[in-house]
């Protein structure tokens, strides 16, 4: 991306045309000035509305929703949090047991984060700093894994874990999640490590620090923001994951994740009111939204760094 492709001849003809109708520039400035705000407002409504509707329905009573489906406001007197208490309470006391699902999701997500970082931090350091045989092949392999669609892995993994009798175990799911996130994790961390000057490490090496000492004392603290962002990203991926949770954990209700629980309850039971399920949807979404807003800048920079090269 060095040339700019301005195409002088084409611009010149367009300009001649412009001179004839000199108001085109003014018209376009005004038109796009207005259209821009129209687009921004339209997109904002389109992105926010489903989330607003989710919260709205979760706080209304079912009868109220059925009688007045078009209502977009919530009067303070109508707010009811019954749906939340019912969703969170354990099945034994008449609830839907989402507290348990949340615990499963948290165990899976935290386990995935810990294991992914444990292998991807040293891995990304090796790819970024050290010359070793097969470094380029390893990077290519990780890119291929990142692009590889998970539905194609679903069949063999399902069969394998069924055969060894581990299909219902959280360990198996964590292992699969790690394999799904480790490639993009190494990619993000490597991009960050590449921006840290090597001279700091060289100085430490001159002072007699060993390679692992350098990693622990110099590189790791410097890369901490990226590592944290990466951990949060992996957490979000694991919390949101649906396909493997469905394939591996669906048989045992005690192992359901929040996503799986929500999908199973919406798909299979008519007796749970929509408003209650909406509360479940809110509970599923809140951790993600909180983490996302807390780490948004770190995340977007980590994901797109390198992309602006084109």
């Amino acid at each position, binding site marked *: 991306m060095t040339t700019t492709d301005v195409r002088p001849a084409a611009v010149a003809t367009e300009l001649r045309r412009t001179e004839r109708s000199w108001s085109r520039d003014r018209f*376009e400035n005004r038109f796009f000035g207005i259209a821009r705000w129209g687009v921004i407002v339209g997109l904002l409504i389109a992105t926010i509305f*489903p989330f607003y*509707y989710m919260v709205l329905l979760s706080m209304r009573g079912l009868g109220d929703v059925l009688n007045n489906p078009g209502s977009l406001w919530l009067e303070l007197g109508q707010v009811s949090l019954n749906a939340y208490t019912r969703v969170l309470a354990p099945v034994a006391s008449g609830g839907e047991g989402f507290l348990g699902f949340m615990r499963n999701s948290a165990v899976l997500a935290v386990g995935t984060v810990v294991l992914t970082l444990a292998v991807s931090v040293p891995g990304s350091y090796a790819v970024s700093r050290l010359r070793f045989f097969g470094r380029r092949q390893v990077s290519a392999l990780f890119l291929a894994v990142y692009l590889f669609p998970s539905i194609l892995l679903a069949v*063999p993994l399902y069969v394998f874990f069924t055969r060894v009798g581990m299909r219902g175990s959280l360990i198996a799911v964590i*292992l699969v999640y790690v394999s799904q996130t480790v490639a993009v994790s190494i990619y993000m961390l490597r991009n960050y490590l590449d921006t840290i000057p090597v001279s700091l490490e060289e100085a430490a090496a001159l002072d007699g620090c060993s390679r692992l000492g350098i990693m622990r004392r110099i590189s790791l603290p410097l890369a901490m923001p990226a590592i944290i962002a990466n951990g949060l990203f992996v957490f979000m991926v694991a919390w949101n994951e649906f396909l493997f949770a469905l394939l591996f954990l669906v048989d045992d209700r005690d192992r359901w994740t929040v996503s799986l629980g929500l999908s199973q309850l919406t798909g299979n039971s008519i007796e749970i009111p929509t408003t209650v399920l909406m509360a479940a949807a809110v509970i599923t979404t809140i951790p993600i939204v909180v983490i996302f807003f807390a780490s948004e800048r770190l995340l977007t920079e980590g994901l797109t760094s390198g992309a602006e090269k084109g």
Partner: protein
Amino acid sequence: MRRSEARTGLGLIAPTVIIVLAVVVLPILWSISLAFQRVRLINLRSAGILGQFSLRNFENVVSAPGFVDTLVTTLTYSVLGTASSIALGLVASLALRKIFRGRGFVRSIMLLPYVAPVVAVTFVWQTMLSPQFGVVNYWGQHILGWSKPIAFLSEKTNELSLFGWSIPIPTALLTVIAFEAWRQFPFAFLFLTARLQAIPGSLEEAARVDGATISQRFRYIIWPQLLPTIAVLSVLRFIWTFTSFDDIYLLTGGGAGTEVISVRVYNFLTGRGDIGLASAQALVIALVLAILVAVYIKLFGKREEDLS
């Protein structure tokens, strides 16, 4: 020194490589082998790693009812889903290019559909579009004057009469495509915004001084610079949409003319318990995908080099 560096490097990368080999590469190879065998979930324990190989599964995949329909649906879904999500992302990134108060916040809001749990957002869409108490049908009937509620997710086609012609509209398929555009546009938005920020302002400034209007500056300065990014986004999004399972499975369950190949793989695997058939179907996806991406790169790869 050099040798110890190599040894440390291999040692540090080894755990990752082992996991990837064990949980991704080996299963893929095994899946290819399974696709040529008659294996069902019931007789899994008695089946060996190397059984009798045959092409029966592939014959069954191709001759199973609905194979061609599913392929066409998947193609339509992925082409339109990819195109509309990238177009929407492009429009969003251009609209949010100029700095204004609260732009950072608006940008983060735009990413919400992409990061939110897919199960939660599909459920909200289902409820919003519900013919009984969905907000969309309510306002459609009360403001837009629809005569009856539209079953967005369970209606295969709807006749639309226009100038005396009646045109069949695949309602459910269009709805899942719209959902795809909504959920995936932030991905394109994110990358196009990053690319836009890297374009030097001096070029546009020069063109503006020379009298180029907004649309001309876009056509001759911005667009050529975005094209390589759009090309890469198209490939990525196409691959992921072509094989996406969650969205359609959760929205329609694959009914009403929205059955895509990945839903079929899932049904062969869990519904029928036919591992060989499911593997063969997955392999067919991979092949079709590889061919399409190769054709795309062959067609557009060259032109893109000329432009950049």
